[in-house]
């Protein structure tokens, strides 16, 4: 059963990746598209907690780093999504389960994830961009992720609950 669950998690992340790269590019705003993979990791963190979300974040990040047309230094999205998985999982323990809280968690995770990725780029000079450009992209991606949250997050959370109900609920 565990392998089936892992396979389903991989399928969810893959679907998010392909949608992000091939479908949402039609509606990109300044080239920025909603980060669906990040939303999947946040959803996993809210249902299953830090440990699972960090593992999923690492896998999903490696996928984002290596699947075409990615060309940046591999491991940067993996790092960003591991951090997102940890923080979102920790936050899920302390917040009241309201819509506002979910949106706030997504906004914080999106800001954190894109920023960690951008900062790792600044450190590696890959590519050599200026801070205002980075901030603009971070801002737009937070807005995009918030817009897509009502459509994606409930689906993801229901899926992870169905996958392993005994782990999701105390």
């Amino acid at each position, binding site marked *: 059963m565990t392998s089936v669950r892992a396979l389903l998690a991989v399928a969810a992340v893959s679907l998010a990746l392909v949608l992000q790269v091939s479908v949402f590019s039609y509606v990109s705003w300044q080239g920025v598209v909603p980060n669906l993979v990040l939303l999947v990791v946040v959803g996993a963190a809210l249902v299953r*907690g830090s440990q699972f979300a960090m593992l999923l974040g690492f896998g999903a990040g490696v996928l984002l780093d290596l699947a*075409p047309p990615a060309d940046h230094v591999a491991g940067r999205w993996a790092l960003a999504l591991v951090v997102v998985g940890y923080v979102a999982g920790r936050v899920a323990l302390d917040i009241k*389960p309201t819509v506002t809280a979910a949106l706030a968690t997504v906004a914080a995770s999106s800001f954190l994830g894109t920023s960690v990725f951008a900062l790792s780029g600044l450190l590696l000079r890959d590519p050599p961009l200026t801070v205002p450009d980075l901030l603009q992209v971070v801002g737009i991606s937070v807005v995009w992720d918030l817009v897509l949250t009502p459509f994606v997050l409930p689906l993801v959370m229901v899926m992870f609950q169905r996958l392993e109900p005994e782990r999701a609920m105390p």
Partner: protein
Amino acid sequence: MALDHHRERRWGSADRTPGRGQPPRALVVALLLACATLITLDYHGGSDSPVEPVRRAMGEVYGPVEVTAAAVVRPVAAIPRWFTTHDSMRSEIDDLEAENAALRQQVNTAGYDRNKLAEYDGLTAAAGTLGYALVPARVVGMGPSQSFSSTVTIDAGARSGLRPDMTVVNNDGLVGRILRVTATTATVLLLIDADSVVGGRVGESMEIGMLHGRGVLGDEGRLDLDLIDESVVPRKFDTVVTWGSESGAPYVAGVPVGRISTVFSNLRDSSQRAVIEPFVDFGALDLVGVVVPSGTSSDRAVIEADGSLR
């Protein structure tokens, strides 16, 4: 309310069942170290890093999926056009656009062609440009700006005769070059990527320089031109074409790139920097052509230099 209560238990409870609370410190450290290792391996490996074969394998898996997804979405993305215009009008517009692009390209390169003749290098340049054909391909995936690199996936790969370091063009001009190929797809580095450097030649003055991408998509997909001869002041609205590399890789010569929109003079070292507005609209890339040597065996129709299909 029942649902709310249900959620309350799931999110807000201070449960400490395995996998919910604080993750083991060993796991946190292990994952962070794994990321750091991956970054280090790929960063210092460069183009022959150990990550590259994995990247290619991933491309073999996800490339075809992206091709399928793009094929499904393309008709849907075209629906808005159905409401604004009839079928016949659309095909007419397409024809006119193609004609327009061809004319524009002629105008854009007119100065360059004149100079070429004047300098009697026509023979060698023509020999170079005659030997090429185009493999048509469509863009099936775009790298998001969140990743801060401008790359796209196209639906032609090694089976269509593509190899790394081939020039990619479209109706309007230079698009970029191929970074890596899989059996059925290829990854293209766009001209505007911050890592992209192209040799450029100003059409009117024949001065050569280097075109650097700025790495921003959106409305500011601009390029910076640094001229090698720093005493020359480039003129506004001059057309810039590719300078060309030896044996046409990665860039063939004479492909229109863009028009000079602004010129900056640096008073301190009296150098010139020009900003180029590319002819290609990178936000709406679809049909592109990959420049291959004439006679390349391909699994699809190849457009030869004289316009015939093979």
